[in-house]
C-alpha cells in the first residue's frame, strides 16, 4: 500500500498556468477566510528548472492576478521598445517589413522581454507565501481514479529503481496525492494529459492539435551591440518551402540576447533536422550581427502546442481540469502562451473555488467552467486568432501572412469563416525516396555548435541507473519500419541526441540515450509510427535551465 495525503486541490506542474491557478485559489480562500490546502508537484529539480520560452510576455493576466506586480518585483524588466519583422530569402538576403504591413498580433508595445523560468520562480515564491505547498523534484507519474471513473488525484513516481527494475538502497515508494480537484498543468503534450484525452475523449469535437518545436539559446553579447527591448522576428530561410516556422531574437537585460527557432512539427521532409536548421540560421547576417564575438550561455528546447482555438479540447472532466498548454491555450498569432496559460489557470481556480464553496467534492464535472471560459477575454482572443495557424500552413508564409494581415488588422479576426487544418503532424512525414538528404554545414563552434555541446549547456542530468523513460510500444519498429522508410527521423528531430541508430556487424540497433533528454516531448509527437511514449523519469531529472 502506498502512503497517501489529502488536499483540496492538487496541481501537476509549476509552470505559469499551474502557479497562477495556485495563487488565485489561495487569494480567494484568504478573501473568504476559508481554509484551503493546495499542493503543486513539479518534476524539475526546482521551480523554473524545466521552463523554456522565448519569451515576450503580455502582462495582462499577471496584472489581474497581482495588480501590484511591479512593486512586488516580478521579473519583467525589459519593455519591448522596437519590433522588427524579416523575411529571410537566402543565407544572406532578407527583406525587412515596414511596420504598417505587420499583422497586429505581432506588435509588442506594452509587452516585456523576460525569462519565463524566472517569472515562474517568482510566481512560486508568491504561491508559497500564500500558503501553497510546492514540491519540486517530484514527478506526477500516474493518474488515480475513483471507482466511478472520476479523477481522484495523482501518484508521484517511485524513486531509487535501477535500470533493470530492481529496488536500490535509496528506493522510496511514490505517494498518492488525493484531491477534490486535480488540475493538470504539465505544459505541451503532458503525459498524464495524453491519458486524460483518451480516457475522457476530450478531443472528440475539435480539430487535430498542432505542434512546433522551439529551440532556444541564451547569449552574452558585447555591450556596444546590445539594444535592450529590441525584438526581431522572421521566417523563411533556412526552412524550405512547405516547412512552417520562424525565428526570434530578443535583446533582454544584462547584456544578453535570446535567439531561437520554432519549427512546425507538421514538416514533411524526413531529412529535416530542426537542431541543424537552428544552428545554420545563426549565420544569417540579420542574426550574426549581434551574435558575432558573443558567447553562448545556455541551450534548450521544448515543444509548443499551437493548434489554437480550433484545436481546443474539452477542458473539464469529473474530478479535474486541463489548463495552459496541456490543453493548448497558446495564441499562435501572437506567438505567446504565458498570459493565456495564466488566465486559463486563474479561470480554473475561480471555478474550482466556487465549486468547493458550494460543497462539491470533485465527483461532479465542473461544467460551469465552459461558461466562465467563453465569457473571458481569453476565449475572445483565441477565437480572433483562429485562422492564423491554418492560413500559414495552407498558404505558406507570404500568402498566409497576407491573409493574416487582412484577417487580423482589417477584419480583427471576425471573418465569417474558419480555416481548418485537420491532418495530424506525425502523419505529414513523407518517405526518404521523395527527398534528397539535406547537407547541413559543419558547426564552426563560434556561432553554430554540435548537439552534444549544446545539451551540455542545458545542465541536463538524470540519475544514471533508472529505467528508460522513453518507452517503445514495439521494440522493432525503429529498425524495421522507421529506418527504411524515414531513415529513423528520431535521430534528427530530437534536439538532444537521445536517439541513435548504431550499425555494427550484427546490423542496425536503435539506441536511446535517455540521460540527454530535455523533456521537450517532440518524439512523443512526431514519431510517424506513434511508437514512442514519453513518461516521467525519476523526479528532479531533466534540464536545469537558468534564466530560460
Amino acid at each position, binding site marked *: 500500500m502506498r*502512503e497517501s495525503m489529502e488536499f483540496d486541490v492538487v496541481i501537476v506542474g509549476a509552470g505559469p498556468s499551474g502557479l497562477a491557478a495556485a495563487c488565485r485559489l489561495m487569494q480567494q480562500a484568504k478573501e473568504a477566510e476559508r481554509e484551503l490546502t493546495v499542493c503543486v508537484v513539479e518534476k524539475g529539480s526546482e521551480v*523554473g*528548472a524545466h521552463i523554456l520560452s522565448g519569451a515576450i510576455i503580455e502582462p495582462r493576466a499577471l496584472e489581474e492576478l497581482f495588480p501590484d506586480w511591479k512593486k512586488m518585483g516580478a521579473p519583467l524588466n525589459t519593455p519591448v521598445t522596437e519590433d522588427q519583422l524579416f523575411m529571410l530569402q537566402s543565407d544572406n538576403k532578407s527583406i525587412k517589413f515596414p511596420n504598417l504591413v505587420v499583422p497586429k498580433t505581432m506588435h509588442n508595445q506594452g509587452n516585456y522581454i523576460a525569462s519565463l523560468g*524566472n517569472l515562474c520562480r517568482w510566481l512560486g515564491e508568491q504561491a508559497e507565501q500564500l500558503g501553497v505547498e510546492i514540491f519540486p523534484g517530484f514527478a506526477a507519474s500516474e493518474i488515480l481514479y475513483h471507482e466511478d471513473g472520476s479523477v481522484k488525484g495523482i501518484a508521484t513516481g517511485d524513486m531509487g529503481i535501477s535500470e533493470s527494475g530492481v529496488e536500490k538502497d*535509496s528506493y*522510496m515508494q511514490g*505517494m498518492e496525492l488525493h484531491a477534490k480537484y486535480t488540475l493538470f498543468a504539465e505544459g505541451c503534450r503532458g503525459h498524464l494529459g495524453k491519458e486524460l484525452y483518451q480516457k475522457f475523449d476530450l478531443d472528440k469535437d475539435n480539430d487535430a492539435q498542432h505542434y512546433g518545436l522551439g529551440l532556444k539559446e541564451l547569449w552574452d553579447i558585447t555591450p556596444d551591440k546590445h539594444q535592450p527591448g529590441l525584438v526581431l522576428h522572421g521566417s523563411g530561410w533556412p526552412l524550405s518551402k512547405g516547412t512552417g516556422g520562424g525565428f526570434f531574437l530578443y535583446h533582454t537585460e544584462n547584456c544578453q540576447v535570446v535567439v531561437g527557432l520554432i519549427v512546425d512539427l507538421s514538416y514533411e521532409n524526413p531529412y529535416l533536422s530542426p537542431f541543424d536548421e537552428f544552428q545554420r540560421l545563426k549565420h544569417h547576417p540579420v542574426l550574426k550581427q549581434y551574435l558575432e564575438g558573443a558567447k553562448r550561455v545556455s541551450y534548450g528546447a521544448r515543444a509548443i502546442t499551437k493548434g489554437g482555438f480550433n484545436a481546443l479540447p474539452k477542458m473539464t472532466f469529473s474530478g479535474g481540469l486541463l489548463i495552459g498548454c496541456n490543453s493548448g491555450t497558446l495564441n499562435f498569432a501572437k506567438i505567446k502562451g504565458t498570459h493565456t496559460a495564466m488566465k486559463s489557470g486563474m479561470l480554473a481556480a475561480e471555478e474550482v473555488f466556487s465549486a468547493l464553496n458550494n460543497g462539491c467534492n470533485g465527483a461532479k464535472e465542473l461544467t460551469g467552467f465552459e461558461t466562465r471560459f467563453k465569457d473571458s477575454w481569453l476565449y475572445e482572443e483565441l477565437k480572433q486568432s483562429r485562422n492564423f495557424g491554418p492560413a500559414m500552413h495552407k498558404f505558406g508564409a507570404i500568402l498566409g501572412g497576407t491573409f493574416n494581415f487582412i484577417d487580423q488588422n482589417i477584419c480583427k479576426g471576425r471573418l465569417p469563416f474558419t480555416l481548418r487544418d485537420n491532418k495530424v503532424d506525425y502523419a505529414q512525414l513523407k518517405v526518404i525516396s521523395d527527398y534528397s538528404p539535406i547537407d547541413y554545414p559543419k558547426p564552426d563552434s563560434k556561432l553554430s555548435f554540435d548537439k552534444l555541446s549544446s545539451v551540455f549547456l542545458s*545542465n541536463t542530468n538524470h540519475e544514471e541507473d533508472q529505467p528508460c523513460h522513453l518507452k517503445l510500444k514495439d521494440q522493432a519498429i525503429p529498425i524495421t519500419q522507421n529506418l527504411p522508410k524515414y531513415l529513423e527521423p528520431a535521430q534528427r528531430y530530437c534536439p538532444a541526441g537521445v536517439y541513435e541508430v548504431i550499425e555494427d556487424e550484427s546490423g542496425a540497433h536503435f539506441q536511446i540515450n535517455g540521460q540527454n533528454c530535455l523533456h521537450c516531448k517532440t518524439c512523443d509527437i512526431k514519431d510517424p509510427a506513434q511508437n514512442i511514449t514519453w513518461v516521467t523519469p525519476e523526479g528532479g531529472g531533466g534540464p*536545469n535551465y537558468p534564466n530560460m
Partner: protein
Amino acid sequence: MKILVTVKRVIDYNVKARVNADNTDVDLANTKMALNPFCEIAVEEAIRLKESGTATEVVVVSIGPKACQEQIRTSLALGADRGIHIETDSMPESLNVAKLLAKVVNAEQPGLIIMGKQAIDSDNNQTGQMLAALLDIPQGTFASKVELIGDKVHVTREVDGGLQTVALNIPAIVTTDLRLNEPRYASLPNIMKAKRKPLVVQTPADLGIELKTHSKLLKVEAPAERQAGIKVNSIEELIEKLKNEAKVI
C-alpha cells in the same frame, strides 16, 4: 549522543558553472543551488546512526545567506531534528567557518561532528581539519566507514593506496568521502514536517566572531578550451610532432 552536522549551500553539481561577465566570480544569478553532496552524505550518516540507536539527536548547522535555510530544511526533511543558521551575506573563508563552528560546538557539546570533506564550489578541504585543531579534538577525515565501538569511534579512511582505520576518542570530527553511503530521498510528508521543525538563526556577531578576510579574490577565469586534435598518418609523424611541435619527448 548528539551529532552535529555541517551543511553548505553550493551550486548544484549538475549545473555548468560559468564565470560572470566582469570575471569577478562565478555567475550564480538564478542558478540552481543545492546541498553540497559531501554534506548530504554527512547528514545521511548521522541519520543512520540515529536510526541504529547510537545517536539521540541530529543538529544541522549552515553558514551563509538567508537562502541556505533551504538546505537546512532539506536536511531536516531527510531526518535531522533541528537546525541552526548562522546568517551572513559574505562568503566566509574556511578559518572563519571553523571559528564559527567551534562556538557552535562549545554551545551544543555534540559527541560527534560529521562534515563533508570539502564543498564542491571552492574545493578547499580545510574546515574539518581546522575545526579539529581549534577544538583540539581528534579527526578522522575522508571516511568511508564510521562505527561506534565502545566509547570510541572507528573511522575507515580512504588514503592513497588503500584504507586506514583509526579509533578516535569522542568527541571527534569525521569528514565524509563519497563511498560512505548513498543518501536517501526526502519523502513528501517529511518535507512538509521539516517546515515545522525548529530552526534558530544567529549571526557571527551573536557568536562573538568577527569575520576576517585573509585572501582577496583577484579574478575568475574559465579554463582554456581544449584545442581540436589532429590525425597523424604514421608513428614516425607522431613521434616527430611530439618531439618538435609539442616538445614533450
